[in-house]
C-alpha cells in the first residue's frame, strides 16, 4: 500500500530540464535514499511525489494507485521540507499538532469541527484533547524539544527549527515519508540519535521512506537502497555495499565515498590478474573486463603508504612511488594527497598516536592489493 513507483518522470521548468525520465521502484517499508550533487533534481523528485509539482510527463504510483491527479493532501505523504516550511505564527507544539488536528477534523462531524478550527486559529481558543497532547509531547521528546514546546518557532535556533520540521512530519505517521535533508543542520551526536528515532518510527509503522541527504555516511548507514542521481537522471540504484564496491561509473565511484580514478589500458593477463598500463604505472587487478580502455578505481583506504624501504614482504604487488603533497588530520584517520605522475591520489591511513605522520614533500611508496582494484 505504501510502495512508490515513479515511471519515466520528466519535469521541465521554463526551459530547465530538472528531471529526465526518472524511474524508481521503491518497496513498501523500504528506507530509500536519493543521493547526488547539488541541483541534480532530488528535491524536484520529492516534490513531484508529494504532489507539489505537476510532472511534465511520466507517472507516479503510490501503492497500486496512480496519483498524478490526486491532490497533495490526499496522498498521505509526510514531507520534511528542505526549507523547513514551519508555520511562523504557531508555536512548536502547534506546528507538530497540526496534522493531528486535521486528522481529527476530517473524522468529526460538523458540531465537533468548530472547537478544532478555533484551536487551530488561536491556541487560547481551545484545549487540546489528551491523546493529541500526549502524542505531540512524545514526539517532541524524541527530537529533544519537549522543553521548548511553547516557544514560537522564530525563537529557535536553526537546528531546533529543523527538528520541529522533522517532528511535524513524523507525528502524522504517513504511508510515505519524504525527507529532504532532514538532519543537515544538526551536529553529529544529535544526528545520530535522530537517525535512530527515524529508523525506529519508520520500522515500527512500516513507513516507506525516501530521503535526501548529502551525508555519505548517513546514506550508507541508514538506507536499504540508494539511488544516485546526476543532472536530473538516475545513474545507479543499489544497496549501499553494491554502490560502494561496484560503482557502475567513475562518477558514482567518486560520488559514493572518495575514489582514486586512473585511466589505463588493459595490456594482458598474468596469473589471473588483469594487467593495466597507464601513464607512469602498471597495476594488476583481480577484476576482468571486456573493454581495453578502462578506469582504474581504488579507494583511499585500500592504498597503503610506506616510507621507502619499509614495505613488508607480503605487500609486493602494485608498488607505486609518489610524493606527499598535503597531509590532513581527520580525527581517527590521516588523509594524504600524494602526487603520482600526473595523478593526485588520496590515501587514508589509520592515525596511530605517537607514530609520526608523513610530512609534506616526503617520498613515499604505495601498495595496492590487486583484489581491491576495480576496473570499469
Amino acid at each position, binding site marked *: 500500500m505504501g510502495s512508490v513507483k515513479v515511471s519515466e518522470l520528466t519535469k521541465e521548468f521554463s526551459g530547465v530540464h530538472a528531471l529526465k525520465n526518472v524511474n524508481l521502484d521503491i518497496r513498501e517499508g523500504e528506507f530509500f535514499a536519493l543521493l547526488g550533487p547539488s541541483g541534480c533534481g532530488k528535491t524536484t523528485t520529492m516534490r513531484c511525489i508529494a504532489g507539489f509539482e505537476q510532472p511534465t510527463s511520466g507517472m507516479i504510483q503510490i501503492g497500486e494507485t496512480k496519483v498524478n491527479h490526486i491532490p*497533495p*493532501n490526499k496522498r498521505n505523504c509526510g514531507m520534511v521540507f528542505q526549507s523547513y516550511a514551519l508555520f511562523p505564527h504557531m508555536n512548536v507544539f502547534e506546528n507538530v499538532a497540526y496534522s493531528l488536528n486535521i486528522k481529527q477534523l476530517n473524522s468529526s462531524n460538523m458540531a465537533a469541527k468548530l472547537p478544532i478550527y478555533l484551536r487551530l486559529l488561536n491556541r487560547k481558543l481551545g484545549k487540546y484533547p489528551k491523546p493529541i497532547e500526549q502524542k505531540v509531547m512524545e514526539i517532541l521528546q524524541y527530537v529533544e524539544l519537549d522543553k521548548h514546546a511553547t516557544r514560537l518557532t522564530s525563537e529557535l535556533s536553526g537546528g531546533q527549527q529543523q527538528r520541529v520540521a522533522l517532528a511535524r512530519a513524523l507525528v502524522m505517521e504517513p504511508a510515505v515519508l519524504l525527507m529532504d535533508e532532514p538532519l543537515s543542520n544538526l551536529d553529529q551526536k544529535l544526528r545520530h540519535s535522530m537517525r535512530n528515532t527515524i529508523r525506529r518510527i519508520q520500522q515500527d509503522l512500516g513507513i516507506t521512506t525516501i530521503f535526501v541527504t548529502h551525508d555519505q555516511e548517513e546514506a550508507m548507514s541508514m538506507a536499504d537502497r540508494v539511488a544516485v542521481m546526476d543532472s536530473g537522471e538516475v545513474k545507479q540504484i543499489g544497496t549501499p555495499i553494491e554502490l560502494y564496491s561496484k560503482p557502475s561509473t567513475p562518477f558514482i565511484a567518486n560520488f559514493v565515498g572518495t575514489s582514486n580514478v586512473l585511466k589505463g589500458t588493459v595490456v594482458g593477463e598474468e596469473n589471473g590478474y588483469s594487467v593495466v598500463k597507464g601513464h607512469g604505472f602498471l597495476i594488476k587487478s583481480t577484476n576482468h573486463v571486456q573493454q581495453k580502455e578502462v578506469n582504474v578505481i581504488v579507494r583511499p583506504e585500500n592504498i597503503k603508504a610506506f616510507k621507502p624501504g619499509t614495505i613488508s614482504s607480503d605487500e609486493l604487488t602494485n608498488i607505486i612511488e609518489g610524493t606527499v603533497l598535503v597531509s590532513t588530520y581527520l580525527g581517527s584517520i590521516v588523509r594524504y594527497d600524494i602526487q603520482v605522475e600526473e595523478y593526485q591520489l588520496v590515501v587514508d591511513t589509520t592515525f596511530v598516536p605517537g607514530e609520526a605522520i608523513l610530512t609534506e614533500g616526503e617520498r613515499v611508496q604505495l601498495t595496492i592489493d590487486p583484489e581491491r582494484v576495480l576496473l570499469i
Partner: protein
Amino acid sequence: MKNRLSSFNELTFVKVLIYLFFGVFLLLPLVSVFLVSFTGQPINLLGSITNSNILQSTIEKFSSASFDNYEKIFTNKTYFSAVQNSLELAILVSLIVIVMCIPIAYGIARTTMPFKRTIAALCTIPLIVPTFISAYAIIIMFGRAGWVTYIYNSLGGEGMLLDPYSIAGIMLVQVFFFFPYALWPMVAAFKVSDISLEEASLNLGARNWFTFIFVTFPLAIPGVISSALLIFTVSFSDFGTPIILAPKDLNLLVVEAYREIAGFFNWGGAAILTVIMVLVAAFFFWLQHLFTKGKNYGSVSGKPKQQKLNDAKGLTRTLSVYSLAIVIIPVLAMLSIVLQSLATTWGKNPLPNGYTLSHYQTIFTSSMGNIQNSIVLALGALILSVIIATFVSYFVVRQNSSKLDFMTSIPLVVPGIAFGIALIQTFNTAPLHLTGTALLLIVAYTIRRLPYMVRSTMGTMRAIKQDIEEAAVNLGATPLTAAITIIGPLMLPGIAAGSILVFITVIKETSISILLAPADWAPMSLAIFQNILRGEYYTAAAMSVVLVIIVLILQAIANRISKNQL
C-alpha cells in the same frame, strides 16, 4: 500557477460562491447600468424574469433604446477634458501620497519611533471625517475668513496662503485626508518583510537608508503599487471635495457623472460616464498587473525569523518629527471641526463668536440609535469583507485570478449613487426583494468597501512563501483548511489594515445609505449628511467629532484584544 490540480475541491466551491456573490450583487446591477446607457431608463432585469408586467415594460424600454446618449457624450468635448483633468488629479495625488507615506509607513511598521501609537491613532482620523466635513474644515482654515489666512495676514501675507477654491485646494484635502488609504496597506506590506534580508544588506556594507531603498522597499513594491492604485481610485472617484470647494473652472469626470444623475436625472449619460470610469480604472489595473507580475517574493519564510524593530535614535526621531508634521494638518483640521461643533455661530472672525454644547445635546437626544445602527452595520460588512477578501487574495495571488482581482476592484470607481440606484433597480421586486432590508445595506457596504480589504490583504498574501502552505497541505489539510488556518492568520497584518479602512469607510459611507437605508436602520453617516444637506454644519461637525471618538474607542478596544496587531 503551481496548483494546476484539475480535481474539484472545496476551494473551487468557495470560488464559485464568490463569483456568484459578485455576479448577483455587482455585475448584474452594473449590467443594468450599462443597459441604462442605451435606454436612459431604469431596467429591472431580475424582476423581468418573474413578473410579466415588468417584463412588458422592460421590453418597451428596450424598444426605445438608442445610441443617442453616446452620441451626445462623445460629441461633447467637455467630457474629454473632464477625463484628462480627473486623470491628472488622481495621478498627482497618488504620487504625492505614496512618496509622503513611505517614511510614515516604515516608521510605524518597522521602528520604535517616539509617539508611534499616537501617530498611528492620528493617522486614522482623516479617514473617519466625512469628505464634506474635511473640505469644510479646509475652508475654515484656509478660506478667506479662515484662521490660517488670518494668521498669515497678520504676519504680513497678502490674500490667502493657499486658495482652497482651486485644484490645489482639492489636492490639499485629498492628500491629507486620503493618505491613510495608502498608509495602512503599506504598513502591512512593510510588516511582513523578512528582517534577515536587511541584516544581510547591512552586513554587506550597506547603510540603513540604502538598505531601505534597495532591499526593504523593492520587496514591499507589490504592496505599495496596490496602495497607489487604491489612492488613485479614491481620488478619481471622490466628488465630495470638488463639490464643496467648487473651483469655478472645475471639470472632473466624477462630478460630471454625479451631476448628470443627481442634477438632471440623466441616467443614460451617467451610465456612460460610469462605463468610462470603469474603463479607465481597468486600464490602471492592467498596468498594475503588468508591474507586479512575477513579483511574489515570499519573504515570510518557513524558517521563521523574529521581527526586530529599528531603534536607531537619529532615524526614529527624524521619522517621528516628519510623521507628526504630516498628521498635524488633518489634526488641525479636526480641531477646527471640534471648534465648529462647539460654536454658537462662526462668521468672518478667526474664532467662533460664542460656544455651546447644544449641538452635542441634539445628537445625544436624537441620534443614539443611528450610532448603534452604524456600528452593527459596519461590523456586519467588516466580517463579510474579511472572509471574502481573504479568499479573493488567495485566488489572485496563488491562482492568478486576475479576473477576480479586477472584479473586486470595480466598486472603487463606480460612483456610490450609481451603484445604489443599480441595486434598487435590481432588488426592488421578487425574486430577490431585498430593497429596504439591512441585509442589502450590508451587502452593498461590503461590495463597495471590499476593495480596501482586498488591496491590503493581497500585499501580505504575496509575501507569504508557497512552501508554508504546501506544508499544511502535505500534513493532510485541504487547500481550504490550509487557507483558513495558515494563510488567514499569516495575513493578519493585512487584514488588520484592511479592517480599519473598511470599518471606517462603512461608518461614514453616505451615498449608499441615502438610497438604501430603511428608516429603522439609518446610520450615523446618513444623519450627518442630512445635516450638511440643510446647512446644519455645526451639528454635522459635532456628529463627526462623535464619530471620530467612537471609532478611536473601538480601535483601542480592537487593539487591546488583538494586542500586537498595530
